[in-house]
C-alpha cells in the first residue's frame, strides 16, 4: 500500500510536469508568439520587442520553461489580459461553482443509471432493456449543446416552469439560493455520464449474476431482492468508482459546453470566453488546473476502489 502510494504520487508528479510541458510547447507553437496573440496583428515591432523583454520571452527556451515552472509552483498561473486579473484569482472564484455543477451531475447520473443498469441486466433482452438501451445510445450520440437547448425549449419555453438561464451568483452560496435554475444545467451534464454509467452497470451486473456466490445464495433460499441488494450490488458497483475517476476529463469537457449553453458562471464559461478572446494565459492556467484535478481524481478513485473492494491489491 505504502509503496503503491509512493509510486502513484511520483507518477502523478511526473504527469503534472508532463502537462506543463505540453502546455508550454503549445504556447510556443503560437504563430508569431504570445506577443502577437496579445498585442494583435497591428502591433509595432518595438511594442513586440518591449513585450517580449518584459515577459522574458526573449530568453532561451529552457530558461523560459524553468521560469514558467518556477512561477507555477509559486501559484503564479499568469495574468489574464482579457479580464485584467490574475488567473489564480479567476480560478478561485470560478472553480468551486463548476465543482458544484459537476458534483451534482455525477450524483444525478449515478442515482439514475445504477438502478436502470441493474434493471436492464435482470430484464436482459426484454422490452425494458431495449428501451433503456436505445435511450442511452441516443443520449450518448446527442451533442451536449443540443440536449441543453432541447431541455430549454421543453421546460423553459413550451412549459415554462424552469428558468432557461443558470443562477448568476458570484459564489456557491448565491447559486444554491436559486436551486430551480440549477435543474436544467445539471440534467444536461448528467446526460453525458448517464449513457456510459448505465451501459457499464448493465454489463457489470450481468457478469455478476452468473457468479457462484449468486448461485449459492439462491440455493440457500435467499430471496431475490436480498441477493440483489446485499450480495450483488456491492460487487457490481465497486468497479464504477474507477469509472468515475476515469470519466472526469470527459465530464469536464461536457461542463464547458453546458456552462456555455446555460451561461453558468463557472470555469468552463470563462475558458470558452478566453478561447474566443485568445486569452492564452487564462486558457493555459485552466488547462493545468483541470489536468491536476484529473490526476488527483483518478488517484483517489483507485484508493477508494481498494477500500470498497478488499480483493483489489494495489500494486
Amino acid at each position, binding site marked *: 500500500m505504502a509503496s503503491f502510494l509512493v509510486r502513484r504520487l511520483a507518477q502523478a508528479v511526473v*504527469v503534472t510536469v*508532463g502537462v506543463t510541458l505540453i502546455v508550454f510547447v*503549445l504556447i510556443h507553437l503560437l504563430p508569431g508568439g504570445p506577443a502577437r496573440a496579445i498585442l494583435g496583428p497591428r502591433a509595432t515591432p518595438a511594442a513586440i520587442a518591449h513585450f517580449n523583454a518584459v515577459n522574458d520571452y526573449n530568453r532561451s527556451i529552457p530558461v523560459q520553461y524553468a521560469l514558467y515552472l518556477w512561477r507555477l509552483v509559486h501559484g503564479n498561473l499568469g495574468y489574464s489580459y482579457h479580464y485584467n486579473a490574475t488567473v489564480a484569482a479567476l480560478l478561485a472564484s470560478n472553480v468551486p461553482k463548476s465543482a458544484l455543477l459537476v458534483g451534482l451531475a455525477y450524483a444525478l447520473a449515478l442515482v439514475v443509471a445504477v438502478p436502470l443498469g441493474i434493471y436492464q441486466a435482470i430484464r436482459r433482452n426484454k422490452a425494458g432493456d431495449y428501451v433503456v438501451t436505445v435511450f442511452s445510445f441516443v443520449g450518448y450520440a446527442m451533442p451536449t449543446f*443540443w440536449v441543453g437547448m432541447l431541455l430549454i425549449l421543453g421546460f423553459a419555453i413550451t412549459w415554462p416552469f424552469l428558468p432557461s438561464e443558470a443562477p448568476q451568483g458570484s459564489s456557491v452560496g448565491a447559486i444554491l439560493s436559486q436551486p430551480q435554475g440549477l435543474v436544467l444545467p445539471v440534467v444536461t451534464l448528467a446526460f453525458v455520464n448517464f449513457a456510459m454509467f448505465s451501459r457499464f452497470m448493465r454489463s*457489470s451486473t450481468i457478469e455478476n449474476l452468473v457468479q457462484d456466490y449468486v448461485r449459492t445464495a439462491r440455493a440457500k433460499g435467499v430471496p431475490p431482492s436480498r441477493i440483489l441488494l446485499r450480495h450483488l450490488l456491492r460487487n457490481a458497483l465497486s468497479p464504477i468508482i474507477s469509472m468515475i475517476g476515469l470519466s472526469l476529463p470527459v465530464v469536464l469537457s461536457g461542463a464547458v*459546453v453546458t456552462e456555455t449553453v446555460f451561461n453558468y458562471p463557472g470555469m468552463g464559461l470563462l475558458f470558452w470566453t478566453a478561447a474566443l478572446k485568445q486569452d492564452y494565459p487564462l*486558457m493555459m492556467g485552466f488547462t493545468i488546473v483541470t*489536468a491536476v484535478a484529473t*490526476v488527483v481524481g483518478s488517484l483517489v478513485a483507485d484508493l477508494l476502489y481498494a477500500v470498497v473492494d478488499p480483493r483489489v491489491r494495489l*500494486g
Partner: protein
Amino acid sequence: MASPLATVVGPGSQPDGLVVEGSSGASRGLWRLALGAFLENRLALVGVVVILGMVLFCFVGPHLYHTDQVHTNLIDANLSPGPGHPLGTDDVGYDVLGRLMVGGQVSLEVGLGAALLSSVVGAAWGAAAGFAGGALDSVLMRVVDSIYAIPPILLVLLMGSMFAPRTWMFIVVISVVSWVPTARLVRGESLSIRVREYVDASRSMGARGGWTVLRHVIPNVIGTIIVQTTLQVANAILLLATLSYLGLGPPPPSTSWGGMLSGGLTYIYDGYWWQVYPAGIAIVVTVIAFSFVGDAARDAFDVRLQRR
C-alpha cells in the same frame, strides 16, 4: 493513469487478460469466426447499412441533387420545406438538403480521418511501449497519461484557436486527443504478447524488435484496434460538432453537421425546425451506427477469443 487494479478486472475494462492465440497461420479461420459473429449481430448490420447510406448520400448525393452551397441568397432565407427545397433553406438561403450533404462530407471526413490517424499513432505508440518495456515504456506511458489528464475539449479548443480551420487541421487536432485510449489498450495487450513462446521462438531465430512488433504484436491486437477505430469515428464526429458550437468549426461557406445544428439552434425560438432536426438527426444516427458497429466488432473479436 495506468490501471493498478491488479486482481479484479472490471467488466467494462478492456480484455487485457484475454489471450489472443496464434498469429498468421490460423488467422484466416479466426477472421472468419469473427466475421460470422459480426454478421449474426443484426444491430451491426443496421449500422453498416446506415454508414454506407450516409457515405453515398454525402458524396454521391451532390452529383444528383445540385444546389449552390457557396453563394448566399438572402431572398430565399429561412424558407420552410416545400417545392424546390425539400428541407427548406437556412438563414442565408442555402438549401438544407444540399447543405446536409456538403456538411456531412466534412463530418465524415474528419470522423474517419481522425479515427484512422489516431489508431495508427495509438497502436504504434502502445505497441512500442508494451513491447519495449522498462524505462522507454514508462516514458511513453507518462506522455499518454499527461495528454489523458487534459480534458479533450480544452486541448482541442486550445489548438483549434491556434490553427487555421481546415479539414486536415481538424483531423490532426482531434487525433491529438483521441489516440490515447488506443495506445493504452494496445500497450496492455502487447505486454502479455511479448512474453509468449512464439515471440521467444521468433527472437531466438534472430528477429529484431521492429519485426516482432509488426509480425506478431500488431496482428494480435488488430481486433482491439478495429474496435477503437470504429468508436473513435463516433467520438470525432461529436467533438467536431462541439467545436462548431463553440465557434471553432469549419468557416463558411464550408460547414459540418455540427455547424448546421448549432446555426439552426440560433433560430430555435422562431420554430425553424428544419434547420435543427435534419442535421441533429444525421449526427445522432451516424454516431449510433458507428457505436453499433464498434460494439459488435468487440463482441465478434471476443467470440473469436472464447471459441478457441
